[in-house]
C-alpha cells in the first residue's frame, strides 16, 4: 500500500516536472516549426519559470488578498487533480466518485485563477473575466453532459473503473469526441484564448501578475492543459490501453498501461497544440457560438445513452 502511494507521488512529480518541458516541446517543435522559426530552447519554459520565481513580488495597491492567494491556490488545486488521474489501473486515492472530484478540482483551479486576476482591480481584468466566465459556463455544460453519458454507460463514477472497462456504443464515442473538443477549448490556446487575448486586452486576467505569482498562474494553466488532455486519454483510450481482458500478467499490463497513458497524453497535448497554431483567435461571440454549436454532440450522445445506445 505504501509502495502504491509512493509510486503515485513519484509519478505526479515526474509529470509535474515534465509539463514545462512539454510546453517547451510544443513551442520549439510545433509552433516554431509551423511558423518556420528556429524557436526557443526546449527548456525555455523552465528558464522563464526560474526567472519569474527569482523576481521580486509586486502587488498593485488596488489588489485585495485574493490576488495573492489565488494563483497559488489555483496551482495546488490543479496539482491535486493530477493525483486523481489513474496512471495505473488502481489508483490508491481512487474512490467511487473521483470523477466528480476531478472535474471539481479542474473547474476550481480555473475559477480561482480568474478571481485572482479580477481582484487586481485593473479594468482589463473586468473584460477578461466576463469573457472567461461566459466561456466557462458554456464549456462546463459541455463537460457535464459528456461525463453524464460516460458515467451512465459505465454505471460508475470511478475514474479507474471507467478507464479499465471498455464500453463501445455510439453515445460513448460521441462523448469521447466531445471530451477531446473540451480539452481544446480548455487549453486556452488560440482560438479560445479570448480571456488572455494579448493584443486586445493585454493578457487580461494575468495583466497585473509578475514574478513568482505569475509563475504560479502560468504553471497552473499548463497543468490544466495537461489535465484535460490526459483526462481525455484516460477516459477515451484508457479502456483500450489497459488491456483489461488480455491474458498478459498483471505487472506487465500495469507497466504498458502506465507508459501508454503518459505517451498518449503527451501526443494529445501536442496534437491540440498543432491544431491551435493554424487558428486565429475567435471573437468572443464566435467562440461562444462555436461551443454552442458543438454542444449538440454531447446532447445527442446523452439522448442516445438514454435510449440505450
Amino acid at each position, binding site marked *: 500500500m505504501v509502495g502504491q502511494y509512493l509510486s503515485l507521488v513519484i509519478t505526479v512529480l515526474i509529470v509535474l516536472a515534465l509539463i514545462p518541458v512539454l510546453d517547451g516541446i510544443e513551442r520549439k517543435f510545433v509552433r516554431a516549426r509551423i*511558423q*518556420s522559426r528556429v524557436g526557443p530552447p526546449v527548456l525555455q519554459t523552465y528558464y522563464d519559470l526560474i526567472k519569474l520565481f527569482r523576481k521580486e513580488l509586486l502587488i498593485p495597491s488596488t489588489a485585495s488578498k485574493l490576488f495573492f492567494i489565488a494563483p497559488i491556490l489555483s496551482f495546488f488545486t490543479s496539482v491535486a487533480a493530477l493525483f486523481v488521474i489513474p496512471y495505473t489501473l488502481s489508483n490508491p486515492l481512487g474512490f467511487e466518485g473521483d470523477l466528480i472530484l476531478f472535474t471539481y478540482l479542474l473547474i476550481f483551479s480555473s475559477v480561482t485563477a480568474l478571481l485572482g486576476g479580477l481582484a487586481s482591480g485593473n479594468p*482589463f481584468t473586468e473584460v477578461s473575466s*466576463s469573457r472567461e466566465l461566459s466561456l466557462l459556463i458554456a464549456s462546463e455544460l459541455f463537460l457535464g453532459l459528456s461525463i453524464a453519458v460516460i458515467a451512465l454507460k459505465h454505471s460508475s463514477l470511478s475514474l479507474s473503473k471507467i478507464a479499465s472497462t471498455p464500453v463501445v456504443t455510439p453515445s460513448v464515442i460521441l462523448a469521447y469526441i466531445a471530451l477531446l473538443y473540451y480539452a481544446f477549448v480548455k487549453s486556452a490556446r488560440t482560438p479560445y484564448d479570448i480571456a488572455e487575448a494579448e493584443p486586445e486586452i493585454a493578457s487580461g486576467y494575468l495583466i497585473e501578475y509578475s514574478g513568482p505569482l505569475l509563475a504560479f498562474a502560468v504553471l497552473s494553466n499548463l497543468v490544466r492543459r495537461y489535465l484535460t488532455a490526459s483526462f481525455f486519454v484516460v477516459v477515451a483510450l484508457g479502456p483500450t490501453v489497459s488491456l483489461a481482458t488480455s491474458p498478459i500478467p498483471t505487472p506487465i499490463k500495469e507497466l504498458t498501461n502506465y507508459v501508454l497513458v503518459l505517451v498518449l497524453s503527451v501526443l494529445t497535448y501536442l496534437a491540440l497544440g498543432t491544431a491551435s497554431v493554424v*487558428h*486565429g483567435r475567435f*471573437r468572443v461571440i464566435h467562440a461562444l457560438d462555436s461551443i454552442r454549436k458543438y454542444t449538440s454532440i454531447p446532447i445527442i450522445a446523452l439522448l442516445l445513452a438514454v435510449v440505450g445506445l
Partner: protein
Amino acid sequence: MVDVVKTLYEVLGGKILRHEVIRDGVVIDVRPEDLVSVVKGITEGLGGIYTVVVGVDGRGIDNTYHSIYVFSLDELKTYVLIRVRLSPEDPKVESITPIVKGANWGEREVRDLLGIEVLGHPDPRTLILPDGWPSNTYPLRKDFSYCERPRLDNPGSNYVPQRSEEVVALPYGPYHPLLHEPEYFELHVKGETVVDVEYRGFHVHRGIEKLGESRLTYNQVPFVAERICGICGFVHNVCYCQAVENAAGIEVPERALYIRSLVLEVERIHSHLLWLGVACHVLGFDTGFMHAWRIREPVMYLAELLTGSRKTYGINLVGGVRRDVNRDSIEKVVKILKKVKEEYDHFVKSLTSVKEVVKRLEGSGILPKSEAISYGVVGPTARGSGLKRDVRVDHPYAAYKEASFRVPVYSECDNMSRLLVRVDEVYESISIIDQLIDKLPSGPIMAEDVEVPEFREGFSGVEAPRGEDVHYVITGRFSKVYRWKVRAPSYNNIPALKVMLHECPLSDAPLTIASIDPCFSCTDRLVVVDVLTGRKFRVDLRTLARRGKL
C-alpha cells in the same frame, strides 16, 4: 492648368484676390473674411477633399502670417492652396472645422505652434503642446530659437479617466501590446461594445519641422525627413525632395524618377506585408504573422540591394538620386520578386482558410463613404470606403505616368475592404516594378544645375503605403528651407477612428485601429506626456535613466 484656374474663377468669382500656378497646384489668395465661403465653394462646388492646413510665420517674407488650406481636386488632378494673410500683431482666422471635419487637427496645430487664433473652433484643447506649456510661446514662430527649451509650469493636469458602473474606460496606450508606439486611446466600453473613444497623441513630437527650418541645409533635410517614419520613410524623403524641386523648378532626370518609383514600390510591398503580418497577429493568428514576415524578408534584401540599406534608404537628394541601379541588381530584383509573388499568392489563398480571421474582418470597423470624404481620409482607408483616391493617379509624380496599374477600390467600408485593398496593391506594385524595369531609361541620375532660389513655394504629394503624404516647402536663404510642413497620412486617418470604433465590439477594436495602419511617429513628428496617470510633464534624460534603474 488654365482650365483649373478658369474653373476656380467660375466657382469663386471675385473672391480670388490673386492666383499663382505652381507645379502640382494653384495658390489662390483670399481675404480672411471670405475663407469659409471659399472653402464651401471648393468642397461643395468642386468636390475638393481636405488635405492639410499649413501655418506659416511669413513675417520674414511679407510681414504677415499665412494660413494655407490645401484641398485636393482629384478630378482636375490638382491641389488648390487657399491662402489667407493675417495681421502680424494679432493673427486671427475663422475656423473651417464646422464644415470640414478633417481640418480639426490641422487648425489646432496651427494654433498651438504658430499662435494663429482659430475663431469658432469646436475643440479648445491643445493638440500638440503639452499641458503647462507657457502661454504666448509658439515654437514654430521664427523668433523662437531652436535651442530654446521653455520651462513647463503647472506640470499637473486634472485629467481623470471616466469611470462608472456600466462603462469601463480601457486604456490603450501609451504602452499596450497592440500598439508598438506611444499614443493613447481610451476606449469607453459597455459590456463588450465600445461606446466612445478618446485619443491623445503627440507624445513624441520631435520638432522635426523646426529642426529642418533652423539647423539643416536643404540637402540634409531628406535624411531627417526619412526618419519621420520607420516603415515608409522613403516617401517622406521623396516628397520633400519633390516639394523643393517643384519650388525651385528643377527638372529631375528621367532615370532618377524611375529609380524613385522603383524604390517607392519596393517600400510599399514591404510595408503592406508588414501590415498583413501585424493584422494576423492582432487577430491571434501568429502563424500568418510569421509567414507574412518570412515573405517580406527577401523584399527587405531587395531594398538593401537597390539602395544600400534595409530601411532609411537615403538615396534622394534635391535634384535626383545618389545611387544608380545596375544590370546585375535588376536581374536579381526580377528573380526575387517572381518568387515573392508566388509565395504571396499562396499566403493570401491560405489565409482565406482561416475562417475566424475572415469572420472578424468582415463587417467590423465601418467607415461610411460620406464620413471618409468629410474627414479627408487617404490611402487604403479611403479606398476601402469606396473612394477612388490615389496620388499616383490623381497627381502623378516620379515615373508613375509610365506604368499602367489598377487602383483597387472596395466599397464595403469595413476592415475586410481595407485589407483587400492592400492585398491587391501588392500585386499591382509588383507589376509596376516589372513595367518600370522594362522601360528603365539610361542617362544621368542627378540634375546638373541645382539652384534653389529663395522664397518660392513648393507643394508635393506622394502615395505612401498608408495614403497620401504631403510636404509643403518655402525655400529660404543660405541653402535652408524657410518653412517645411509635413503631413503624414495617418494624420488624416486617425481622427476617422472615432467613427470606425463607435459601437464596435471590443474584440474588433484593436483590429480596427490597426486597419488604418496607423503610423504614430509620422503623425507626431513634433514633449513627454504621461496620460495614463493624467500627469503630463517633460522628463529629462537623466531622470529617465535614474528611473530606469529603480
